[in-house]
């Protein structure tokens, strides 16, 4: 059996930064990612980050990913790509379906001292008549096609959901040459930041609030979308239907943490709608209710890349501390700085709910 001090599951922003922080202080780190390259969703983020300079404002996600991968290489993080963690077992054993360089597959059991679960989140679906037709897809799929694969998923697009993902992906589809016919939002107000909404509105995209989708119509793929107004009880109002000529419908209805591995290991979870659903609890070190199992990024509450990066760093440092690669005092100082930055990221009208929810996670964890 292979032994590693630290196994990080998932190579997105949180997993990568956890790996880097632990490895650069001397820990032996294995990072496992199911994709052909690490970096997670960062490679799809072609917009500039918001916030202060301490939070990489003005830097694009793709550049942050490149930098993190370089750092991981420099500090000796071992990376297994195209490899899937299929199970977590007692005493921190990690079962990995590993793809070797000759493309053959092998099941490896790795004994770890510390495990970081950085599995991210998956998109929520919205179900309506015709939603299985080709041409109906997640906003993430549309973003991947456009920004990574560089093929537009359609010419005329309807976006469902006006949160930041819906607004930003709409803009990026337009940057790549598609026409966004409209954005619909079931709530009476726009979900995301005003600046993102203003950008697409200036370009002439209507945002229909208090609207939902009734149906996607098409014989082999999407040809039309039927939308309608909803009342204050979220019910469709008959007679308000509009037909939009679209070939693609993209769904941006939030994300849900991928917590299967945490559940497999009996990490205590709590239902927290503000963070996307069932969330594994963690303490100030990002350690779950099970000793040695850490959780970072969207897997422990859907937020954004900046908070994911900071949570990853926090876990990496806490692990280096636990493995005695840095002093208690040094670790305390570093972790305090990170918590300050995290708290700053969780301020304002959009951050406050997340801050409260995150505090509930910490309190919930203490009670265990």
């Amino acid at each position, binding site marked *: 059996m292979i032994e590693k001090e630290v196994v990080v599951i998932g190579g997105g922003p949180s997993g990568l930064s956890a790996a880097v922080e632990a490895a650069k202080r001397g820990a032996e780190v294995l990072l496992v990612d199911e*994709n*052909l390259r690490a970096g997670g969703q960062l490679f799809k983020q072609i917009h500039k980050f918001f916030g202060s300079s301490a939070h990489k404002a003005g830097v694009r996600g793709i550049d942050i990913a490149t930098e993190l991968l370089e750092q991981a290489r420099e500090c000796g993080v071992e990376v297994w790509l195209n490899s899937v963690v299929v199970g977590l077992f007692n005493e921190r054993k990690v079962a990995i379906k590993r793809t070797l360089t000759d493309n053959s597959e092998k099941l490896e059991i790795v004994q770890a001292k510390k495990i970081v679960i950085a599995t991210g989140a998956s998109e929520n679906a919205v179900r309506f008549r015709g939603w299985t037709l080709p041409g*109906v*897809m997640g906003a993430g*799929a549309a973003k*991947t*096609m456009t920004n990574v694969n560089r*093929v537009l*998923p359609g010419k005329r697009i309807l976006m469902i959901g006006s949160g930041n993902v819906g607004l930003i992906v709409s803009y990026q589809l337009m940057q790549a040459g598609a026409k966004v016919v409209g954005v619909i939002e079931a709530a009476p107000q726009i979900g995301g930041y005003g600046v993102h909404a203003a950008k697409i509105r200036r370009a002439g995209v209507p945002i229909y609030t208090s609207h939902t989708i009734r149906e996607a119509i098409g014989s082999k*793929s999407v040809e039309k979308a039927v939308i309608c107004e909803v009342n204050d009880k979220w019910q469709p109002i008959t007679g308000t239907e509009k037909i939009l000529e679209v070939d693609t419908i993209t769904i941006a209805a939030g994300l849900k943490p991928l917590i299967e591995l945490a559940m497999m290991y009996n990490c205590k979870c709590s239902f927290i709608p503000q963070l996307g659903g069932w969330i594994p609890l963690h303490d100030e070190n990002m350690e779950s209710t099970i000793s040695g199992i850490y959780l970072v990024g969207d897997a422990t509450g859907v937020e954004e890349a900046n908070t994911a990066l900071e949570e990853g760093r926090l876990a990496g440092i806490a692990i280096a501390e636990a493995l005695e690669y840095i002093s208690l005092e040094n670790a305390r100082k570093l972790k305090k700085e990170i918590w300050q930055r995290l708290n700053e990221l969780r301020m304002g009208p959009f951050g406050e709910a997340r801050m409260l929810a995150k505090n509930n996670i910490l309190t919930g964890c203490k009670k265990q």
Partner: protein
Amino acid sequence: MRVDNHVILGKDERKEIVEIQVDGKTIHAKKGEMIIAALMANGIRINRYTVKKKEPRGIFCGIGQCTDCVMVVNGKPNVRTCITPVEDRMIIKTQYGVERSNG
């Protein structure tokens, strides 16, 4: 439709082209790109038909999670085309229900 020029990402510098066969028809793909990208660039949106109701399905998640885009690739069914890169002379077929491996 390919995004050859992009305001942020610049020009698509991938020049090498490979040939793949989709349901008997030869199409061009960029070397190393995902199968779904080559299909979509050539206007192909249906990857498979469902088992019972024979309904068409296409890309949904784009990151290998949902398995809606699976096809028969080089005789192997259930290949996720959104995360599998093309190879020269790859033979791709629309998948009808649950197909058996013939390779």
